[in-house]
């Protein structure tokens, strides 16, 4: 039977090589996937465990398939707040490997490499592995690092310098920024998981802090020694006893202060968190600006009350697998990648933790679709909460998780990790032995319950690391607050960095320089009325905008598409009205006052009377240094204008405007200045927010025949 090159139901390009001349194997029916053979037994494997006299628990998992051995020493340490020396715990983890009482760093590194091994340290332990034949020697090194680290001052300074360099380079790493700021948004800076090292905090760290932390928390009674691989029980017992049996370090010098807080010699007060982070009251949207970024990194995050031994933890993992947890068929991946092509990959994770769990969904998407992608991510969370999972999705997730479990057993360290987790997280002894059975019983109802309990899209923080100018305003509707939170790369509220203002430069001198640049104060004051015709496009359609400005406070605007009038504004100095095809409305109060203020051809002539003028510093506008002039009007509004240091011309205006969706940043840039009747006017105006528009000026009439009817308000 020949395979058909075109089936009646098939559409699309079939890449069959040739029409085969040989008959296909009559036994195989390609139209369906083959049925599996009987499922193999999955044997979780055993571990041996025993306690040393000093309280250290040893866990051994034997595996003689490969001549490899790995050892992990893990300390069970509660999270503490680092406060103004945040970074010292990470530094401790790094400098732990930088020397022992018997070996300097170079000797230690060379010894490990010569054994063909690797050794790494973290702030809660040490991990090392190598071939069986070299293990005894490597274990000696591990023992030295754990029991007699020297924290050499010179190595500490080098590590600190590297950490500072790392902090500096993070400024341009969008994933790094998203991780760090994501933590701040999830846990807040008042919780250990949300503390971020900064240049300032790292500068405050001293070597004694590292040693004090080590002495206080690296204790045998809080330690687990995990041995995996080509060791017999006898070898393991002998090796563990020989190295760590005699380890009885003196207790750290600890006292209690007046508030009942622990005071550790060398560290000071050790503060433990008293409150567990909760999801925020309302959904927030935060942005870290990366001008010109081709992609945005988008995250949806919130803390979750989920410990590893929670009875709903497994249903939660099944729920997360369907949502975005590593299967290609997860909802986030299928929606954002396979359906919409927004991203290379979209994922979610639901992390259980003894102290504070968290949820995170994320993707890197091209800049233009940032708001759409964020909306889809929120939609998927809401959809999961409200509607749960379909039977085929549930079956796929459970199959995948069962398969993952089986595959993970290829690595003998998996079984060791299971044993360690059982102790650390206070899990039932048969937690892993019963995993597959328990997984099988997870129902759609329990997944739905998990979604309700663990997913909080309305209380999430949405973080975008991307080009704020291009996409900021479009994100505002997602926030349940007034507007966006602009943050810096440390998760702190963004503070604009302004350059200093040279002596002698004041708001008045800046304005005078502007008038001079555009034709002189006299010429500018001579402009009593103005008519400007501009062309632009809106939603792809050509649109003309005409504006009339007349001293002292009259203004009119008409927006047309061809001959059709789209919108019209008229302000006679006392009243103003906006009208269009749907009707008319009176402009009142603050909006009216602002309109009258901006009505004359050159409102800059009147700024001094409007309120307070401030010159906080210089900024960069499209690479050009500019004075930032802030006008704080008596009405209570504020706007900022940027005047070129070199040419004096006005480059840009910015203000925050309230819109029905929230507060948005609205800006205009003035470009292409050309003279009309001796005065320079910008002939290209680029406006951002609430609607983005580029307006090309086609005609300017200065002091043309005054036509009062333009300003008449019915």
């Amino acid at each position, binding site marked *: 039977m020949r395979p058909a090159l075109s*089936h009646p139901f*098939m*559409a*699309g*390009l*079939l*890449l069959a*090589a*040739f029409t*085969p001349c*040989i008959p296909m194997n009559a036994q*195989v029916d*390609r139209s*369906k*996937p*083959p*049925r*599996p*053979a009987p*499922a*193999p037994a999955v044997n979780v494997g055993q571990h041996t465990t025993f306690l040393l006299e000093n309280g250290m628990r040893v866990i051994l998992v034997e595996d003689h398939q490969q001549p*490899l051995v790995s050892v992990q020493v893990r300390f069970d340490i509660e999270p503490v707040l680092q406060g103004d020396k945040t970074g010292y715990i990470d530094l401790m983890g790094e400098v732990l490997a930088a020397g022992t009482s018997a070996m300097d760093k*170079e000797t230690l*590194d060379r010894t490990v*490499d*010569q*054994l*063909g091994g690797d050794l790494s340290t973290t702030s809660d332990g040490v991990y090392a592995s*190598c*071939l069986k034949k*070299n293990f005894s020697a490597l274990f000696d090194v591990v023992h030295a690092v754990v029991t007699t680290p020297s924290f050499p001052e010179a190595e500490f300074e*080098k590590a600190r310098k*590297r950490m500072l*360099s790392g902090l500096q*380079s993070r400024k*341009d*790493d969008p994933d790094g920024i998203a991780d760090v700021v994501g933590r701040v948004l999830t846990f807040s800076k008042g919780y250990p998981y949300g503390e971020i090292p900064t240049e300032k905090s790292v500068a405050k760290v001293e070597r004694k802090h590292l040693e004090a932390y080590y002495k206080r928390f690296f204790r045998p009674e809080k330690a687990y020694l995990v041995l995996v691989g080509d060791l017999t029980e006898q070898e393991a017992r002998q090796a563990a006893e020989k190295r760590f049996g005699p380890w009885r370090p003196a207790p750290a010098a600890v006292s209690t202060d007046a508030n009942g807080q622990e005071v550790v010699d060398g560290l000071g007060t050790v503060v433990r968190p008293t409150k567990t982070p909760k999801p925020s009251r309302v959904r927030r949207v935060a942005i870290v600006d990366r001008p*010109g*970024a081709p*992609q945005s*990194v988008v995250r949806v995050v919130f803390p979750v009350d989920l410990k590893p031994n929670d009875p709903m933890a497994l249903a939660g993992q099944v729920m997360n697998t369907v949502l975005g947890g590593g*299967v*290609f*068929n997860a909802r986030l991946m*299928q929606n954002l*990648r*396979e359906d919409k*092509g927004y*991203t290379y990959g979209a994922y979610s994770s639901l992390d259980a933790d003894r102290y504070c769990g968290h949820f995170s969904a994320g993707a*890197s*998407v*091209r800049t233009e679709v940032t708001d759409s992608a964020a909306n889809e991510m929120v939609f998927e969370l809401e959809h999961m909460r409200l509607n749960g999972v379909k039977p085929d999705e549930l079956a*796929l997730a459970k*199959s*995948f998780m*069962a*398969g993952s479990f*089986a*595959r993970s057993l*290829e690595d003998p360290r998996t079984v060791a990790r299971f044993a360690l987790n059982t102790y650390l997280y206070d899990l039932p002894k048969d937690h892993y032995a019963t995993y597959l059975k328990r997984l099988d019983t997870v129902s759609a109802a329990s997944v739905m319950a998990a979604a309700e309990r663990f997913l909080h899209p309305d209380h999430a923080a949405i973080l975008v690391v991307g080009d704020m100018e291009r996409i900021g305003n479009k994100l505002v509707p997602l926030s349940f607050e007034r507007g966006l939170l602009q943050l810096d790369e440390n998760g702190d509220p963004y503070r604009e960095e302004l350059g200093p203002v040279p002596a002698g430069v004041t708001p008045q001198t800046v304005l005078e320089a502007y008038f001079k640049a555009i034709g002189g104060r006299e010429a500018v004051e001579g402009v009593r009325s103005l008519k400007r015709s501009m062309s632009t496009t809106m939603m792809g359609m050509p649109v003309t905008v005409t504006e009339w400005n007349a001293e002292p406070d009259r203004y009119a605007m008409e927006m047309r598409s061809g001959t059709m009038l789209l919108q019209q504004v008229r302000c006679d100095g006392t009243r103003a009205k906006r009208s269009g095809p749907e009707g008319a409305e009176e402009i009142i109060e603050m909006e009216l006052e602002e309109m009258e203020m901006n009505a004359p051809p050159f409102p800059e002539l009147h700024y001094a009377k409007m309120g307070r003028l401030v010159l906080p510093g210089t900024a960069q506008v499209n690479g050009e240094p500019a004075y930032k002039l802030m006008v704080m009007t008596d009405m209570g509004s504020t706007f900022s204008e940027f005047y070129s240091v070199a040419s004096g011309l006005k480059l840009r205006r910015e203000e925050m405007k309230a819109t029905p969706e929230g507060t948005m940043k609205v800006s205009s840039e003035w470009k292409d200045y050309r003279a009309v009747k001796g005065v320079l006017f910008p002939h290209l105006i680029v406006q951002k927010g609430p609607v983005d528009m580029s307006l090309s000026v086609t005609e300017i009439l200065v002091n043309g025949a005054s036509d009062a009817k333009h300003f008449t308000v019915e």
Partner: protein
Amino acid sequence: MLAIPLTAQKGAITFTEFDLDNGLHVIVHEDHGTPIVAVSVMYHVGSKDKRPDRRGFAHFFEHLLFEGSANIGRGEFSKHVEKAGGVLNANTNGDRTYYYEVLPSNQLELGLWLESERMLHARVDQKGIDTQREVVKEERRQRYENQPYGSILIEVLKRAYTVHPYQWPTIGFMEDLNAASEQDYIDFYKTYYVPNNAVLVIAGDVKAADMRKLVEKYFAAIPRGKDIVRPTAVEPQLKGEVRDVVHDQIQLPAVVQAYRIPAYGTADFYAVDMLNRLLSNGNSSRLNVELKDRAQKALYVGAFSFPFEHPGLAIAFAIANMGVAAEELEKAMDAEFAKVREGMVPQPELDKLKAQLETEFVRDNSRVAGVASNLATAHTFLGGAQMASRELERYLSVTPEDLQRVAKEYFSPDARVVLHYLPKNQKP
């Protein structure tokens, strides 16, 4: 063709292999440690097998080959694997495209069905093409454009090669993908996705003796394709140093040096790779000790060989520590290469590298997915699957004289590409 069993030598990877009449080579590795199996196919086509106006096609095609077949609908490929409890992925480089699944061992036939469907009659529809084009664009942005130092490989390749297709990165260029026509897809598939251009590897909890029958069931009917015509471009030696500056969205300067090295599998390739390990493998390696620890000039430093089928590259890369200029960093890197050219590497240091390699070999081959990949690579590029076990020997036979010789021959400052990556705000 007879199955050729290899008796288990100490440390050697055991396998059997056979050919089908249509040219498909099959390798089988038995390992009953865990009830899983890796099923993989390596097609001997990569980014160098393309027309100059279809750059990125091989990689794009890799994406398209998940879109389905005559019997598998769009989105169903991965569903079958995940429903069966398995995991799947693929990757493309300059020389080959590699697809693999790791499944519970009772799902072996599913893996064979999926890969044979892909080889016999893959299918893409317009929605799939359009979507994957967008996905590949985002992949390019995510990996290369939105990462600090992300463009390094692209910037190096285009200067290190002027004639050979390696000059273009595997990810390709959007203009070319946009221009591809239906006929391009058909031609590419018919030319390269044929059994005589592929090796199928099965590694895990299977009985080798049963494999031939099973493989024939799914793959025998796939017709052999024409013999593959390989690119013949020979890249001339670099005539001197190619030096340039790239301004990037970064805070710390970086230095990249690229040297042209022999093809993967040649004797000198292993000596060159040993040299790179001497310089950068492990905390006690020369670049790490000198540049990172002692002089504190580098925040990060590494030197790597890129094993290409045709003569490839070795790339040394360093990110400057705060306050260190690119020139200073480069000087320090050059000094280390000079030391190897001018002095003999002491035997204990070489022994250290050998100890590291021994551990690496055992680790790499302790997972069936790793074994499958190594066997496929050895068959495709090293002359036979048995070479997967011989590579360690080839490394272990490198002498200090070899290291000095290859340092002089291939790591000369007179024939290399040097790029300084500088922060955009340092642009004049």
